[in-house]
């Protein structure tokens, strides 16, 4: 086990649900992970697996109704965010954790000039104001490689291209000087060439500023490019956490393995590996292991018993939520489970 002291952010047993009239959606279910200072943790999962909700839950930005954080704790720098009264959360947001959203097109306020939007973040989190804050904002624009920042300061979002908007988002998040930066699929709606630019920018900034990043994505290519460690989400749960190299060489969860296989096949041109079945319905999750209906290795136990979150590396670097993790001796795993 790595000592907690090194973890700048620690999430324990986080559960968030949406209570709709049709039923309860367990969007995030008992999720735990931690981030060490300066590292990039990729949160990977399919659409609807709960990545965004998990991130928003960290900031307590889930709106009631219908969303509700049901349990868990989020410890940022030793402080449990869930202990803070909600009305004081705005002090944590930005300065503690900042976030870049998935949709650059709609994540900026269309009726306010972008400069002001960045400046607002500066004013709120760096204690600057007026001219100083403006100067800082322009500096931030420069930092994210926006040409002629003094002029761009006065642009409205609609006057910028998607890539530029995403840079603005990054500038805005960074001007909060956050301890942890959450980037929620920052390149999802961008073209590959623009995506490459943004990723390159983020890498550069990371080297310069040395922030801790929770990088959410569904593209394993980006994971390979960006992440130090990876957490895989499936149906609201983190099913595997490990080192990025380990993920690409030795994934332990059948789901991860399945995806890895089909990605490799894309390169070689072989027939693709299929994970049979449909993505889970969050409102009526399967019993036992949520993945069992689609799992090739499913056994009786999987149908009934919820698997625990197990450390299979013995050093706390590879955690899996599976009764029968691949590449691990069954009995050993069994033993671990008990």
């Amino acid at each position, binding site marked *: 086990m790595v000592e907690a002291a090194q973890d700048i952010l620690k999430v324990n047993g986080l559960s968030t649900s949406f209570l709709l009239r049709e039923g309860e959606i367990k969007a995030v279910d008992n999720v735990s992970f931690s981030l060490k200072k300066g590292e990039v943790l990729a949160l990977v999962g399919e659409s609807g697996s709960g990545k965004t909700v998990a991130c928003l839950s960290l900031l307590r930005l889930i709106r009631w109704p219908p969303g509700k954080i049901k349990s868990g704790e989020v410890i940022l720098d030793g402080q449990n965010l869930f202990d803070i009264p909600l009305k004081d959360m705005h002090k944590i947001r930005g300065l503690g954790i900042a976030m870049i959203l998935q949709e650059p097109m709609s994540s900026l306020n269309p*009726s306010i000039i972008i400069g002001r939007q960045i400046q607002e973040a500066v004013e*709120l989190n760096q204690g600057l104001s007026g001219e100083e804050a403006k100067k800082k904002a322009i500096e931030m624009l420069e930092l994210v490689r926006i040409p002629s920042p003094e002029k761009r300061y006065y642009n409205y979002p609609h006057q910028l291209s998607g890539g530029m908007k995403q840079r603005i988002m990054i500038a*805005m998040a960074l001007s909060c000087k956050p301890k942890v930066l959450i980037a929620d699929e920052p390149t999802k709606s961008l073209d590959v060439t623009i995506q490459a630019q943004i990723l390159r920018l983020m890498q550069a900034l990371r080297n310069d500023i040395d922030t801790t990043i929770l990088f959410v994505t569904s593209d394993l290519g980006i994971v390979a490019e960006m992440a130090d460690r990876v957490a895989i989400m499936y149906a609201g749960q983190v099913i595997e956490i490990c080192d990025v190299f380990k993920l690409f060489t030795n994934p332990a969860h059948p789901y991860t393995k399945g995806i890895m296989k089909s990605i490799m096949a894309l390169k070689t041109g072989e027939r693709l590996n299929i994970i049979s079945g449909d993505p889970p319905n969050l409102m009526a999750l399967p019993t036992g292991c949520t993945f069992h209906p689609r799992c090739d290795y499913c056994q009786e136990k999987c149908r009934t018993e919820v698997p625990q979150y197990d450390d299979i590396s013995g050093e706390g670097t590879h955690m899996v939520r599976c009764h029968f993790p691949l590449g691990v001796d069954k009995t050993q795993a069994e033993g671990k489970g008990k």
Partner: protein
Amino acid sequence: MGMGKYILQRLAFTILVVLVISILVFVLTRVVGNPVDILLPLTATTEQRELLTKQLGLDRPMIQQLGDFLKSAATLDFGDSWTQRRPSMEVIFDYLPISALLILCAMAIAVLVAFPLGIIAAYKRGSLLDRFLTVLSLVGICMPPFWIGLMLMFFFAVKLGWLPTSGIGTWKHFILPAVTISFRPMGNLAQIVRYEMTQQLGEMYAITARAKGVREINLLRKHALKNIMTSSITMIGNDYCKQLGGLSAAVEVVYGFPGFGHLIKETIQSMDYPLLQAEVFFTAVIVCLINLIVDILYAAFDPRIRY
């Protein structure tokens, strides 16, 4: 397109609208109505009627009448009001401003009440307060305004004697009619503000703003408010036009308020065609102008709109 050009285009359209509507009303009234009987007392003789028909020029062919009408209307001269026996324009200028002011007051009340209500409801959506406010705004929309007027007058003027029942003179005279008229726009506005605000608070940019530490109250004030302005302004403009175009008549009648709606009602009842024509003209012009103002305001609140 430049702003100037846009305005010119709109003005051209306004002229078209006014022309079409004026001709329509002209034809409608001349073809079907017979105002002479109305303008004379019951005991008037046949000769008297014929004389008046001639004096009003109603005995001439329609086309000729229309031509004359268009000619003089082009110079904003709609002729003398038949009942008030002075230029229709003069009559309009006696009645229109005060109604415009009254409805403006009503709109101001509506805005002042509806915005906070709508915003609070959006902020606390789903709460008891929200539901209460929603029902309240629905009631404002649903109850007939003249009925509300009767009730308010009954309680505040007659029973409690706090306010004058009718007429004009002091600012106090404006309170009851303005409040009564404000109910419907208030309901409309509160609903749209609540709806739009709810939408805005769920927008991505709202999450972004919260994520950088903006307080909810500032989010509402500095970020969301501006974005709901376009739809609110449309609503306000619309309601203003509707009220001025005759909707306020019933309330004005109840409060004996000498306004434009009241005048419209009287004019129509007395078939005072020149005056009616002038009223139609002015309402159409005002509606077009207000629409233009609304359009221009759009650009002020939504940078994406440029003319």
